């Protein structure tokens, strides 16, 4: 069998060698605590602030609006909980969407148990949160609106600028989970008009275990992690210096090559989508065709189940993911696929292939060659397919 190919870049990405090189000195050579006054501390303080500056430049923010966190999930938790608990005098109503990542959805569920009221905005069949839907759900006691910039499963890009403007009309803070977007598409916090934005390094070829939250100057949210005076007394804990150095290097690389990478990846994505829809009958594309992350392919293949597709692909050396219940450990398929209106049995047959910088046209060819064969084999075993064929023959 030829080499394995990785088509799960929405799950995580390979760390780039330049990123590893940027991290390495900060384990053994330069190891001081950035809070220390001595020279050891000053050396690591410098790299922490350099990385902050790099993130700020790419996001069009000011460095003192960037706060380092342990991961994207922490950023989401901090933003939503911190804003909600800070604004209880104004109200206890939070708005989010039905297609958010669990880092936001489960945070909202936790808040609802503490007496907050949550509205989950429905989405269109393409997975888009329509501004008019937010406009009719928002109230004077709404304090936080959290809608992701790009969806992790179906890649749909939300009209965040319009949504944030509506939130501000009602004096609510707007948070966006941009974990899938940062590094893949241009993200400008001023153009978006958001108050808070979450990101995570490992989605753009940085290391796992480091994230950041952008908090606009003047946006008031409660502190989440209490302790020392790090991060301007808003996020305690000794800075993860090597990982912060890695994130700085990764964001710089991503920004420098973004346009060219996005164009190349998007070309491969379109060829994969068209090729699969053409070669495999009874297949549909999930998510919006145009307003879509450059690397996201998400299709539903009728009459087959997602996990068996994944295992068969894995045996063929292709790494992908699925929204089927069997891969999540729960009984229900992906909440995102159900939110766009897919019936359970079609959601169970979903397959996500996410392309990145490291993929090639040869990888696309391999999927277009292997997947139709796998589907034919699995459909040959499927009683649903047999019934559908019998029905068509009358």
């Amino acid at each position, binding site marked *: 069998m030829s080499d394995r190919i990785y088509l799960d870049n929405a799950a995580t990405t390979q760390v780039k060698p330049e990123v590893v090189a940027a991290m390495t000195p900060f384990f053994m050579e330069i190891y001081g605590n950035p809070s220390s006054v001595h020279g050891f501390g000053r050396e690591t303080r410098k790299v922490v602030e350099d990385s902050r500056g790099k993130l700020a430049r790419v996001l069009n923010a000011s460095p003192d609006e960037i706060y380092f966190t342990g991961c994207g999930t922490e950023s989401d938790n901090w933003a939503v909980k911190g804003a909600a608990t800070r604004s209880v005098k104004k109200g206890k109503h939070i708005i989010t969407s039905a297609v958010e990542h669990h880092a936001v959805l489960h945070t909202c569920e936790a808040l609802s148990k503490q007496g907050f009221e949550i509205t989950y905005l429905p989405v269109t069949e393409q997975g888009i949160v329509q501004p008019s839907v937010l406009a009719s759900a928002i109230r004077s006691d709404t304090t936080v609106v959290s809608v992701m910039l790009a969806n992790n499963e179906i890649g749909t890009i939300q009209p965040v600028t319009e949504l944030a403007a509506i939130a501000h009309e009602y004096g609510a803070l707007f948070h966006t989970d941009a974990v899938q977007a940062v590094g893949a598409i241009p993200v400008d916090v001023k153009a978006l008009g958001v108050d808070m934005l979450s990101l995570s390094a490992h989605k753009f070829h940085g290391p796992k275990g480091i994230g950041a939250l952008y908090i606009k100057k003047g946006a008031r949210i409660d502190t989440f992690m209490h302790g020392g005076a790090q991060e301007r007394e808003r996020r305690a804990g000794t800075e993860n210096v090597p990982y912060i150095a890695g994130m700085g290097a990764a964001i710089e690389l991503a920004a420098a090559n973004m346009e060219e990478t996005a164009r190349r990846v998007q070309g491969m994505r379109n060829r994969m989508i068209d090729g699969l829809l053409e070669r495999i009958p009874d297949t549909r594309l999930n998510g919006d065709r145009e307003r879509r992350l450059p690397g996201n392919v998400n299709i539903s293949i009728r009459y087959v*189940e997602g996990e068996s597709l994944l295992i068969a692909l894995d045996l063929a050396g292709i790494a992908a993911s699925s929204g089927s219940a*069997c891969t999540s450990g729960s009984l229900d398929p992906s909440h995102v696929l159900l939110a766009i209106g897919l019936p*359970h*049995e079609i959601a169970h047959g979903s397959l996500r292939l996410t392309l990145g910088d490291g993929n090639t046209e040869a990888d696309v060819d391999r999927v277009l060659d292997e997947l139709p064969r796998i589907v034919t084999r699995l459909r040959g075993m*499927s*009683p*649903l397919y047999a019934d559908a064929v019998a029905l068509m023959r009358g």
Partner: protein
Amino acid sequence: MYSQQVMDHFINPRNVGEIEDANGVGTVGNAKCGDIMRMFLQVKDGVIEDVKFKTFGCGAAIATSSMATEMVKGKTLVEALKLSNKAVAEALGGLPPVKMHCSMLAEQAIKAAIENYLKRIPGASRTMEEAAIVEALEREPVMQEA
């Protein structure tokens, strides 16, 4: 996450397909939950002479169907009815806890096919043994396709 035996039965499922002139067919599970198993039996003189399956579902669902067909082929109906989901899982070298329901479905699919076979025999023509089985199955109905 899966044992070697599960992977083997997923890659090379035994007895996959349909029996054109099957005299017992049972379908269990539902598409909403992501698993459907259909078993086809060819029974002669109380013995399962041939068995085939079709399954929509995860790797474990396909492997347990395959293993269950191997375990009942050539067996009498009475023996086949004793097939337990635990025995299927054990024969596969174990299943992850979240996948135990797949082995349950395989056991139920075999039972549903046997019940279907017996119900095709007019009540008066059933042997005492067959009548006893029908009665027992009616007391504990299997999960038919929703």
